[in-house]
């Protein structure tokens, strides 16, 4: 097959995303009711980004991070703060901030915010990942759980009246349990602007999937797989497990941060960043997407994210309809019902099909046909051979 140059692909992708963005605005102004459905597209894209990034560390590297929500939360607060303060500094009309901003205005605000958020989250990921990934075992799970809780409890725990130094004052300005509503203008809060439409969300999600696929098929991806299958064997053939695990974790952290920033400033978003973004439930959601889709498979994680989002909204709507027909259902806790459903699904998947929907394979990929080396057999006795083979190719 003749290869299409990457530049052409990229240009087509960018144009498609601009088209999506304009179509979104057009459809919403034509029929306000379509907003609910179109908004699902934006949320889908953000979830795809979150799942794709977690998949790098949980799927490709075989580590187990359960604190993804911590990075998503940091990204959300930081992204929200940068975008709203930047909007204030650039004197983009305050009244317009309550509403969606145009695509042109978003170019003034978003690139800076996303780059800063990505870099900051990568740095934090390095600090969190380095000590826990040098060790073998479940330390990453423990530390990431602790990390996301520290972040959440810090935001919740420091109130404006207990803030004494600049650092605690900065944390207190994030609003604690009320959530962050942008900088204060006079008596009122500015709100977090809704700037990220389909151009940014779908565009970045597609870019992330593309990069993750390239990563998986690169030497780096093969080294990650070797580390995942057997760290000692990988080290024996010259792959430094700590280096690869930490790099994977840093990439995942950066991706999660960008996903969080987009979540905060999504079009038709809530205009507020709440600490609920960092709860353990959110980490569990992303784990569900990755595991259901098939950990290690990029398209699996992306499809898992889309499936999750669609089921999320469909179940919400179904329960809503049901409650109107049968009033008794009105008091059912929708979130708890959903978590029951997904947790059961995950347990069943683990027991029946541990590798998830796709396993490690990609969509439209037959077994070992594209030149990427597959382990000859999944038996662990062969792990040394797998690692060597992965390196040799």
């Amino acid at each position: 097959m003749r290869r299409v140059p990457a530049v052409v692909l990229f240009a087509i992708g960018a144009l498609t995303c601009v088209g999506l963005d304009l179509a979104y605005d057009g459809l919403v102004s034509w029929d306000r009711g379509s907003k609910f459905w179109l908004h699902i597209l934006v949320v889908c894209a953000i979830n795809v980004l979150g799942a794709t990034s977690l998949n790098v560390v949980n799927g490709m590297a075989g580590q187990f991070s359960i604190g993804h929500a911590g990075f998503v939360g940091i990204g959300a607060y930081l992204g929200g703060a940068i975008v709203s303060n930047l909007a204030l500094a650039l004197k983009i009309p305050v009244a317009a901030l309550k509403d969606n901003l145009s695509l042109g205005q978003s170019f003034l605000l978003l690139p800076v915010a996303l780059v800063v958020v990505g870099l900051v989250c990568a740095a934090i990921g390095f600090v969190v990942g380095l000590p826990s990934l040098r060790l073998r075992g479940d330390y990453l799970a423990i530390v990431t759980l602790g990390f996301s809780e520290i972040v959440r409890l810090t935001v919740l725990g420091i109130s404006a009246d207990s803030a004494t130094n600049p650092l605690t004052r900065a944390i207190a300005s994030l609003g604690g349990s009320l959530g962050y509503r942008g900088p204060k203008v006079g008596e009122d809060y500015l709100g977090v602007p809704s700037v990220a439409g389909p151009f940014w969300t779908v565009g970045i999600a597609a870019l992330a999937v593309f990069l993750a696929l390239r990563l998986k098929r690169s030497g780096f991806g093969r080294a990650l797989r070797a580390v995942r299958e057997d760290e000692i064997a990988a080290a024996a053939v010259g792959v430094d497990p700590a280096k690869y695990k930490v790099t994977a974790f840093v990439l995942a952290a950066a991706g999660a941060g960008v996903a969080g920033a987009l979540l905060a400033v999504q079009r038709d978003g809530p205009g507020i960043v709440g600490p609920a973004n960092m709860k353990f439930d959110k980490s569990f959601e992303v784990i569900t997407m990755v595991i259901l889709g098939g950990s290690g498979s990029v398209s699996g994680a992306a499809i898992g994210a889309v499936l999750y989002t669609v089921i999320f909204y469909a179940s919400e709507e179904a329960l809503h309809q049901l409650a109107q027909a049968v009033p008794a259902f009105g008091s059912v806790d929708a979130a708890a019902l959903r978590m029951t459903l997904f947790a059961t699904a995950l347990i069943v998947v683990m027991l029946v099909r541990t590798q998830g929907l796709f396993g490690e394979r990609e969509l439209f990929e037959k077994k070992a046909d594209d030149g990427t080396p597959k382990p000859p057999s999944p038996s662990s006795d062969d792990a040394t051979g797998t690692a060597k083979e992965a390196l040799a190719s």
Partner: protein
Amino acid sequence: MIAWLLNALAQGAMIALVALGYTMVYGVLRLINFAHSEVLMMSAYASVIAQTRLFAGFGRAGMVLSTLVAIVVAVALGVTIEMVAYRPLRARAKGASARVAPLVTAISVSVLLQSVAQLAFTATPRNLDRALAPPMWSVIVIAALVMVGLHALVNLTWIGKAMRAVAVNAEAARLMGIHPSRVIVFTFAVGSGLAAIGAVLYAGTQAPIEPTMGTAIGNLAFVAAVVGGIGSVQGAMLGGVLIGLLGEIVKRTSFSGMKDAIVFALLVVVLLVKPAGLLGQARAEKV
């Protein structure tokens, strides 16, 4: 001052009771049993339901009976989780998924039980009758007795020896005529029972019973287990007392809102300095 110290020790003792469940299961299975905190929460509900429905007029004796009900429920639940969710996985999973799959399952079971509690009992907190609450000194006495009993169980009995044998090497234990799966079930039963005692003491003396209580106490207990050295029974007791003291000290400073964050920060520091925990032993890796 003495009252304060007594209270801090009681806190630590309750945390240690729960931490023992984490550490014992980790010892024999190398699995962080995230569902442990939900077993605790469910047993607290069992105790409050038994206390209000069955033994309402029995006074202190009713409280003891409800505690027994809670222990039975916890043991049944813990053993069921092991048999239904964890055991089939050990037989099947291999390679890289052998490490991650049990963790995923453990977390899923935890989320499932918490959501089921949310649906069944709603988020409205319930309370054990505070008039029947054991005094603080008795919490320490009860916890100390239980721990002495556990120590004797692990070190002096046949089944305790079997547990230690499985923890060191399950294959070798099997060759010596020990059934690892029976030992594992026993470990889950003991750990869950201890969690039930901790849950009733905790709910009786200070906290309301709600679906999220498992996570709140479980996180502290889990940190205690890791700080003490996960897999070590004495470590869990030491870790529990340390976490209890630290929590009470932080409460007296201006950082009281950050109590749990500071506890987690301690965890990260301990992992950095002494990854195996205070009393844990670092093992050499073998191929």
